[in-house]
């Protein structure tokens, strides 16, 4: 199982790194998908099956596809970036901040005793439990989420259609 963890972690990290460094935007999104898959794999590994499936369904099925569409609509379809910007210009600013934060988090995690926890044979949460929780204790956030998603849907359509409407 450790092996699986390490393999998944390597996939995830590589996917993330490629997603922000590659020059071709389509490649970026494809490696982002790899990253999402790795995360979903981690969820399955931690017996959070439902979250894993949701991760695949929403992130790969919806978010990534949406990004591909956005790239198609905003760039030349080849997805190539213009001038080379990776590891140049502002790059070092972001990198520096990120390294500092990563280092600090690393140090904090090392310091904390909680982090040494080992899994205690966790029972997986059944889907029925999640479903019941969604419509019982969490029904208000759930409804709010429904409203939010609807609003986001309408908002996205309106924003993207703005030009079309104005032309009419």
């Amino acid at each position, binding site marked *: 199982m450790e092996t699986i963890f390490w393999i998944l972690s390597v996939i995830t990290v590589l996917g993330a790194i490629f997603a922000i460094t590659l020059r071709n935007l389509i490649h970026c999104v494809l490696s982002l998908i790899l990253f999402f898959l790795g995360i979903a794999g981690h969820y399955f590994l931690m017996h959070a099956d439902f979250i894993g499936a949701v991760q695949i369904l929403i992130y790969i099925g919806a978010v990534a596809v949406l990004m591909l569409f956005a790239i198609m609509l905003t760039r030349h379809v080849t997805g190539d970036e213009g001038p080379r910007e990776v590891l140049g210009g502002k790059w*070092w600013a972001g990198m520096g901040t*990120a390294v*500092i*934060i990563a280092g600090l988090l690393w140090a904090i995690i090392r310091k904390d005793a909680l982090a040494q926890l080992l899994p205690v044979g966790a029972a997986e949460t059944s889907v029925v439990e999640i479903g019941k929780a969604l419509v019982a204790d969490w029904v208000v956030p759930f409804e709010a989420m429904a409203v939010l998603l609807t609003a986001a849907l309408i908002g996205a359509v309106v924003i993207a259609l703005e030009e079309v409407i104005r032309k009419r």
Partner: protein
Amino acid sequence: MDHAALQHLAQQQWLIPLFPLVAAAIQSLLPRGQRKLSAGLCIVAMGASCILAVRAFLATLGTEHHEVERAFFNFTWFQFGNTHLDMGLLLDPLTAGMAVMVAFVGFWIFVNATGYMAEDDNFTRFFCFQSLFAASMLGLVVSNNLLLLYICWELVGLCSYLLIGFWYFKPAAAAAMKKAFITTRIGDVGFFLGILMLYWKTGTLNLYTADHTGALEQAGALAHLAGWWGLSAASTIAFLLFIGALGKSAQFPLHVWLPDAMEGPTPVSALIHAATMVAAGVFMVGRMFPLFTAEPGNWVMDFVMWVGCFTAVFSATIAVAQFDIKRVLAYSTCSQLGFMVMALGAGSLAAGQFHLLTHAFFKALLFLGSGCVIIGTHHEQDMRKMGGLKKYMPITFWCYLIGMLALCGVPPFAGFFSKDEVLLETFRRSKVAWGLATFAAFLTAFYMTRQMFMVFAGKWRGGQPDHGHGHADHDTPDDHGSGHHGGEPHEVSWNMWLPLVVLSAFAIGLGFFSQQYGQYLGVEGGEAPEGKALVMGSSVAVGALGILLGWLIYGRRTMEHATEEDPLSASLGVLFTVLNRKWYIDELYEVTIIRFTAVCGVFLRLFDKLVVDGILHAIAWSFWGVSQLFRWLGDEFFINGGFDSSCESVRLGGKTLAKLQSGRVQNYFRVLSLGAAILLLIYFFT
């Protein structure tokens, strides 16, 4: 009526505001052409509400106990953590009586409005707002919860804003709507503070609860808690709440919006000035009365009484010198509201509320009557250009006469009894206030007589071919009296005078129930108080005197021409002008409060520019400083080259960040992450 049945009815109280609300919701979607459907919907909904209100009222009638029969139904609106906000419905005599009055008067106002608004393009919009108004007022009446009451209170304010400015294309209407909204909002601040304080002190906003921990049931306990200004908590809250009522019920410093509200259509005036909006303030004080009376012998009650007394006299004097038919009524309303508030301040819930009820009927009658006059004379509002209408509009005349007599306090009519009771209660509390109020009653009789004679007596002074203001543009097909180019007044259609007739009946008959109403409210009636004969006698006397004086000045010799000077202005001279200009209160506010606010605005802008912007710049520089510090720390402690260079990058980033207003999202984001890094650092080293 046993308690369980009452409880059952209380649970159904929400149906009363529901009908008009649904009607408003449907009407908001109707196309403009659907006039009949819209009006029909509105009236049917109001009728249904009225029937429900009457049913609830009848249920509360049968109680023979000394204890007030009260049923309520509380439910949790929503919950967060351990706190939960409740909503509640209430059914007790005060509520039931008020609800019947609002629904009933509202119903007839709606009927009248079908005639008054018949020519208007935005007929459906009008009825939509009216319905919403009625719904919020009924909601306000039936609520057992200050939160719900406040929501409805604000809704009423919103609707009045919309309705006063219904003809928003008229600049005066647009100004009046803003004035009404802002002025009442000043009062609402006090009201809101009162609610907050109440919640703070009692932990609940329910008025009554099953376990007797409601806000009103804790009034006794609140009286022993310290509040502000040397008052007990109960009185402080009462005072703050009264400020809300001050705005809503147009009492002295905040009364200015009410006369301007005349810019709205007349049924709106009837609805606002008779049944609903202004009544809301008085009703609220009545509803929260236990808080007012919890601590005996404080100045809040006196304050309430004196404000009411002053407003009563003050507005009555203004009303004497007005020429607009609706304005006279508006100031009369102010004055009568002053009476109610005075009665409440004198400690009598029954007198104040009873005057509220009777006043609602006859003032609605008067307003609708003035609406009929306005329609009958083709949108003429200046009394000087009327006259002799008795001949042309007999039904309206007789109904108006009844309303006028009721308002003047002539014995068999409703106003006599309720006003008499108010005066009596005041007499027992303060002789000076009683004297002033009696003077106000005299003025009331006088200005109403003046109005009657100016409008209905003499000969028709309008109707010159060249008269008036753009009369030509509504000569377009209208359904009443087509060939009226001479401006001949005419009687209005049946749907306009029928409400007058119905309301007249109540204006005559309602007064006889004054004793019963007191018992009904569960207030112990004073057994034969001293001075009853004096008060009653003086009240009748001043009423008669006022009418007589009115007849002497205006009745013996009626005005001949519209341009003729008012006979009173000759005798009063400058004072008349001052009264006509409403004691220059608006001008006073203009030069004091509004000017002051404008100066404050300029000052605040300067403050913003100097201090706030200064702080922002300081923050920018301190960020730069922090990044410098970082570089220094990095050099000192980590000689490691990689870290060094990253610090360098942070410093570079920091330099960029110093230009905070770059508009570049990523720069903001960099600041954000830098901040996060600093927080983490703090967390790590502490």
